[in-house]
Structure formats: structure tokens, C-alpha cells
């Protein structure tokens, strides 16, 4: 039997970052809605109408208008100012899951820099920048 080749450290680190952020994000996403229902007065948006509005074919802007009693959607980062409200905890869970590739690609970019692999340093940072731009930019 041949000896197994060594797995590059960036493989393992990238995998673990993605895995753990998704796991922790999923725990928050599971618990958040229950907190919303247990403490309904402690929410940014009403938890009782969301499913009816979604199933009714309403557009996102219309849904948020009703859920926030006439206000507009506050943006995907609203959890920053509204923790520990139930829907903010749920949003944080989703936010973590949807952004997990950013720390992963940034970290492996740094690893490639230390390994003096400048091509993949640039590629990793390029992907990290794309994700960052998608999160906060245009």
C-alpha cells in the first residue's frame, strides 16, 4: 500500500473555517425564530405574517413594508444594531452562513503569501474581495 500524500494545510484550514461557521450559523438560525415567537414584542419585524406574505406571492419590498409596519427593508446587516432580538439572532445566523467564504479565502490567501505562492495569493484575495464587494458594495 502506497503512503498517503500530505494534505496541504490550506485545504484543512479552509475546510474547517467553512464547516464551523456554517454549523454555528445554523444553530443561531434554528434558535432565532423560536426566540422571536417566545418574545414577540422583542422583534424588529412581526413573525406572524411572514409566511402568509411569502406564500401570497408578495415581492420582497412589499413583504418588508408589511412586516415593519410601513418602513423599508433595513438591509442585511440590521442584526448589528438589534441584537439580542429574535429576528436579529436569526439574521446573524444567516449572515454568518452567507459570509463564511470571506474569512476562509482571506485566511488561505495569507497562507499562500507565507508560502510565497503569489499567484494563488492574488486569486484568493481576488475571490475574498468579490465576496466583500457583494456584501457591502454594489
Amino acid at each position, binding site marked *: 500500500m502506497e503512503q498517503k500524500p500530505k494534505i496541504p494545510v490550506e485545504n484543512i484550514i479552509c475546510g474547517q473555517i467553512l464547516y464551523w461557521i456554517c454549523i454555528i450559523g445554523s444553530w443561531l438560525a434554528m434558535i432565532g425564530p423560536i426566540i422571536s*415567537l417566545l418574545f414577540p414584542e422583542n422583534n424588529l419585524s412581526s413573525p406572524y405574517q411572514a409566511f402568509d406574505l411569502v406564500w401570497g406571492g408578495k415581492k420582497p419590498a412589499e413583504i418588508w413594508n408589511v412586516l415593519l409596519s410601513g418602513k423599508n427593508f433595513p438591509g442585511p446587516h440590521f442584526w448589528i444594531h438589534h441584537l439580542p432580538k429574535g429576528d436579529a439572532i436569526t439574521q446573524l445566523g444567516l449572515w454568518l*452562513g*452567507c*459570509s463564511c467564504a470571506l474569512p476562509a*479565502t482571506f485566511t488561505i490567501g495569507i497562507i499562500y503569501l507565507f508560502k510565497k505562492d503569489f499567484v494563488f495569493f492574488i486569486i484568493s484575495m481576488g475571490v475574498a474581495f468579490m465576496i466583500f464587494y457583494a456584501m457591502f458594495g454594489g
Partner: protein
Amino acid sequence: MGKTHGTVALPWWKEAIKNWYKFPWIETFITCLIALCVYIGWLFISWTVKAPPEATHSVSYVSAWISGFFFISLGIGFLGTLCGIGGGVLWSPIAMAFTPMNSVVIRACGLIIAMFNALVATGPLAKTGLCNIRLGLFFMIPIALGAFLGAKSAIYVAKVFGVAGEGVIRIILALIIFALCFYFITGGKKIEYPEVKKEDRFTAFFKLSLPYYEPSLGKVVDYKLHRGLWLWIAIFFVGLIGGFFGMGGGWAVVPALNVIMGCPLKVAAAVSMTGLGMGSCASVWPYFRAGAMIPIVVAPLFAGQVVGGIIGSYVLIGIRAVFVRYILIGTLLFTSFGLFTKGTQLLGWFTLPTWVRLGWALVCVGVVIWLFKKGK
């Protein structure tokens, strides 16, 4: 999957119970326990919890929706991964054809479903040599770019074209799903260990190969890759379609890596999960920023994919996965017709009578039976 205990290999579930306090079992148990408490336990408890007077529905009504979405997502993630079709390909077309939900919301949910099943699997896969991060990063550029542009286009089309846009999107998706069904039925060209005689200069520059140990062969598999530029072009369009329609691209990325680039099939499957999962982190944000992700609605879908992904990677499947694949092909075939008719209805062209829809359902059943007989 099991380790030896003495001379007898333990089944995965015995190993899990024996090593419950060790990674990866402890987080698996915690995740499953939270899911059990939230989506089953809370469902019963919610009957006793009173909603405030101004609430439009009871707590149990909302809890039932949450649990329903979780179990739908769990089923989609499990079946889609089992059959190699992917969850996003199941969710978006079926939801657009048979539910009244807005297509932007459907597509946002579809990306969540496509994304998290892949991302959770990346952790265990990355510890093996199958998950080649360099190759994943290599195709992440075109797929992230394509998917981001696709997602932005989806939001724009929905805003500008309204109901007519919804109709056109459904018709185009119907044609794509129909073509996919044809591709799944014919099997597509797959080569387990492609032979690449020479790497081209563009691909060689990136040094993408990563040898891995293949247990079934008992040896290290080293491989060469080629046609990297053609892969970039193909993957860009896969990303564009995936981002626009809220589907994953595993159905296209795996054959592209395998057939265009000459990547071993197992490596292609592992790398596609990593690359798509990470690339989708760019395409999901236009939907997120447009408010298409309603937290209480999307959260159970996210959880369902994570739990389904964890469980699916450990469960030994007793049934032949290929038969489940045939049923899913029949379902997608029926769905493509449903999408087409819904699209024509939204555009005000025509509405097909019920007997035509029933006739098509019978055709789909016939196709599934034919596939079963062919498979035997």
C-alpha cells in the same frame, strides 16, 4: 464508513455513539439535538403558547410553517445529494411551477439550498486529498463573477419587467430543466480517470494537480489537467444561469471539470461542492441585500441543508440511489411542463386544459417506468 474495533469494522452509528464526545460527532449530535428540539419538540409546545392579541395567527400556525420548510429542505438536500442532481435544481423549478411564491424569493431560497449542503460537506472532504482547494479557487473566479451578475440581473428583471418577466423566466427555466432531464436520462459522458497527455501552458502555470490516495485502488492517483481557459468560459455561463435562476451548478460543473479539464470524477465532484459553495457566497448577497431573504422563512431552509448534509454524508443507503434518481427525473420532467404552462399563463398567451396536464403526467410516469426497466 467505520473504523476497526478489534477485527470488526463498526457501523458509522456505533462509532458515533462510542465517540460522541469527540469531533466530528459532538457537533453532529448538538446540531441534530437542536433540530429535534426546535422542529419537532417546539412544534408540540407551540400549541400551548399564546400569541399576543394583535397577532394575525397562532404560534402553532407559524411553528408548523417553520417545521414544514425545515423538513422540505432536509428532504431536498438528502435526495439531491444522494442522486447527484443537487438541491437547488429541485427547489427552484418545483417552487416556481407549483407555488404562488414570488420568483425572486424562490431563487434566493434556492441559492441557500444549493449553497449550504455543499459548504458543510467541505469540512470533512478537505481533510482528504479529494478536495483540491487550488482547483476550487481556480474556477471560483468565473463562477462567482457569473453568479453575481446572474443574481443582479434577476433582481433587475424582476423590478423592470414585472409579471411578464415572471412569465418569461418560467418559460426559459422550463426549457433548461427539460434539457437537463434529457441530459440526466442519457447519462452524459463521464470518465472516472481521464487520460490527459499534456498540460497546456495556461493550465500548467497554475499548478492545479493534487495527488490523492484512492482506497478502492490502494494507490496514489496523480493527474494532469488541461483546457483551463475553456473551463473558465464554460463555468462563467454555469454561474450566470445558477445565479439568475437560484440553482446550484453541480450538474454542470462536475462534467465540465471531468470532460473539459480531465479531472478524475471523484475529485471533480468534491471540488465542485467546495467551489460552488464558496462561489455562491458572492451570488447570494444581491438577493440578501434586496430583502429577498426573509429571516424566519429562510432560516429553516438553511438548517435543513446543514442537518441533511451532515446526516447524508454518514448514512449507508440501502436502496439503489439510481432508482431514486429516475423518480426525480420524472418529477423534473413534470415540473418543466408545469413551469412552461405557468409561464404562458402569466404572459396571457394560453392556459392548457386539465386533460393535457394529466396526459403529460402519464407521459412522465411512462418515462420513469421505461428508465426502471432500462436500469434493470
